[in-house]
Every structure is written in C-alpha cells, then in structure tokens.
C-alpha cells in the first residue's frame, strides 16, 4: 500500500484534478502542487470562479449551449442572422466554429450523435427542440455541421428527414482537404470525398 504524502484535502484535490481531460494522476499532482504554491494568485480565484460557475452556468433551453443566462448570449444576440441555424454535436464544436468567426449565425447543440453501439437514440438528443425552432418559422437555412463520421452523417440524414416537411434549406459542411494538408498524407477516403466534391476554380 502506498504511503500518503499529503492530507486528505490535498489528496482529494489531486484525485478530482486527475479526472479532468488531458490530466492523469501524475499531471494532476503537478497541477495541484502548482495551485497550492500559488494559493493567493491562482487557487483562491480559481475556487471562487468555479463556485460562481456552479451557481450560474446553465444549459440554454433554446439551443442547448452552456452559458450563465438562459436564453444564452448567442440566442439573444440581435446582430446575428436569426434565419440561419448551425447544428453542431457538442458545445466544443460550437466554440470551434465561433473561433473561426466564419459565420454570424445562431446555433443548435444536439448533445451527441445517434449511436446504436452506445444506446443513443433520437430521444437522447436535442432534436425535438430543433424541429420546434424550425416550426416556429423565420428559419431559411439549417447548416448541419456534424462530424464527418458514419455516426455524424447518420444523424445528419435523420435530421434531414425530420426537417423535410418544412420550407427550409438544409445544407452540410464540405468534406475534403484541410487547409495546410498535404495530399500524400491524407487517407484514401478523404481524398475520394475531396475529388467527389471538387468545385470550379
């Protein structure tokens, strides 16, 4: 049995930090030690920020995004094009698209993809809310920004079926060569998809 090297409070901190993505037990120990060393500058503000987040963070009842207000800042932003909704799998995808600042549209977070292997069906995803948003009117285009995986595309096809009764244009992201990508290093599937969806230059 390994000997304890710190009190239960520190051990608990290490144990909780080790559950954060990207951190294992070793790196959690380093992070905990760093926080403890910078108790006033880092640990106390971090604890306060986390406490505040616990109290205020909620899931937007309109789009499924996480924010401190419901509806979220994106849903209430009047400068955004409310006629276009970008559908994403997860909040991390929403943040990635927002970082790209390519489109000033509204979003809808599904909360995953249809996955029979993991037992995730349409009822476990935020699909009904999307259909309700479209049914309320004022939407011209739905952009399906789901991952280019079989599960992602199954979800995209399912959504297309669900939205087929509405007068709304349904589009999806292009599949192909990433910026900075070298053809020699790309897998055959991506190359085939890129050739299939080639455009006039």
């Amino acid at each position, binding site marked *: 049995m390994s000997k304890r090297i710190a009190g239960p409070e520190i051990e608990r901190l290490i144990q909780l930090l080790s559950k954060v993505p990207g951190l294992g037990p070793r790196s959690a120990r380093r992070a905990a030690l760093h926080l403890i060393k910078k108790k006033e500058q880092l640990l106390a503000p971090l604890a306060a920020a986390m406490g505040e987040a616990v109290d205020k963070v909620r899931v937007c009842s309109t789009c499924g995004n996480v924010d401190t207000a419901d509806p979220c800042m994106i849903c209430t932003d009047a400068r955004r094009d409310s006629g276009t909704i970008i559908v994403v799998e997860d909040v991390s995808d929403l943040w990635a698209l927002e970082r790209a600042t390519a489109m000033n549209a509204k979003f809808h977070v599904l909360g995953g993809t*249809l996955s029979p292997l993991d037992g995730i069906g349409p009822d476990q995803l935020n699909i009904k809310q999307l259909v309700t948003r479209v049914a309320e009117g004022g939407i011209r285009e739905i952009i399906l920004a789901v991952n280019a*995986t*079989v599960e992602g*595309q199954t979800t995209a*096809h399912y959504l297309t*079926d669900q939205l087929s009764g509405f007068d709304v244009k*349904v589009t999806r992201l292009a*599949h192909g060569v990433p910026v900075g990508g070298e053809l020699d290093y790309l*897998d055959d*599937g991506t190359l085939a998809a890129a050739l299939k969806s080639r455009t006039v230059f």
Partner: protein
Amino acid sequence: MEWRDEGIILGTRRHGETSAILEVMTRAHGRHLGMVKGGRSRRQQPLLQPGNRVELIWRARLDEHLGLFQAESLESNAARLIDSAIAVYGLQTLAAHLRLLPERDPHAALYETLSVMLAHLDDPHLAGELMVRFELMVLEELGFGLDLSECAATGSRQDLVYVSPKSGRAVSRAAGAPWRDRMLALPGFLAVTAGRGAALNDVEDAFRLTAFFFTRHVYEPRGMQQPDARAGFLAALRKHHAAPASHHGESAA
C-alpha cells in the same frame, strides 16, 4: 496470443481520452472486439469508421482478454457511403444484425456477403434486395433459416407465393389458398426460380417477411426491439423511389 485477419469495421466506442474499442467482423474469427490504442487520434479516426475494410493484428496475453488491435487500411468504404442515407442506415442495420451473432464465432459466408453488400450499399436499386438476402442469411446462421426452395405441402417449385408463418417454408398459390389470410407474402425475387431485380413493393413484402421471423425467433426471446436503422433504411429507400429522377443525388445538402 496473436492472430492476423481481414475485417470489416462495424463500430467504434470511445475508451478513455485517446483509445477506442473497435468492433469488427472478421473472416476467420467472427465478430470480434478489441482496443485500439490512440484510436481517437486524427490519423486513426478516418480509418476506424464503420464499413472500412482493414487488415488486423490482434494481440492479448490470454485468449479471453479483450486484447489490442492494430489496424491497417485495405478499403475506405465509409467516405463513399456517408453521402447516401440508404447506405448509412444500411451500414447501421448490417452492424445491428451482426451483433445478434455470438462474439468470436466465425461466419465466413456472412463475411463474404458483407463485403459484397458494402460494394453496392449506395446503389438504391440493389441495396434493398441485398439487405433482404443478408437478413435471410443471418436468420439461417442463427439457426432459423427459411426454406423457400419448394412448396411445403406439394413439393412443387412453381408459383411459390406464400411463406408459412408456422414452418418458415414456402407454399404454392394453390396449396396456400385456403389459408391465404394467415400466410406471409413471398416476393417473387426471393423464389428460387426468380431472376434478378426487385420492385419496392416486393422489397417491402420481403422486409415484412424477415421482420416476422426476426421478431419471433430473435427479438422477442431476447427482449429486444428491431433496430431503428432498419426502419430508417426502408424509409430512405421509399424516399428515393418516390423522388423524381432529378433528385436522386441523395446528399443532405
């Protein structure tokens, strides 16, 4: 323990932050699961998509362990198939059917049929008929095969239009006439003497036929539901046949 085999990916499940549990249908080792270290990396993810054919090396200390898979691409089918609704629902349906088989139980004939299916799954004129034939094969491999070669009552091979829900055997029009309300329809393309090509109505009849025996012999005894993807597959076929020829592009866009 170590073996090498060819396999078709049925699904992947996340395992931890970087790894994946891979489910494959192999030629000699049946449906098999194993862990792929780094399976969620940018390099590995496109390879580990359902439908792709891969060369596999499986290693484990003991045979009963989950083991580690090393996969190398042989054929990237997923990228070709994901644009078609029929194909993606078809892929999920095939995987759901293969999950009815016990793990690590070789079914070489099913593997070969699966390879053929993947080549034609995005062809709406063939996919329905092929799926029905695949379902009949799965039923047979599970021990509930239907005998559609001759009439159960008369032994005749002509004019077979019914299937007895009791025995799962074909019945000719004349012999089945008194019980026609209780009989299941046998679509022409499934009869031994039939040529190739099936109309949508026939495919739907055939799906009803296989669904009946799947439900009775497999789903009900195991307390399972029919896979949602199967209904999606049929709906996508119907949609394709209902759409005017100019709309047969099939993409979500």
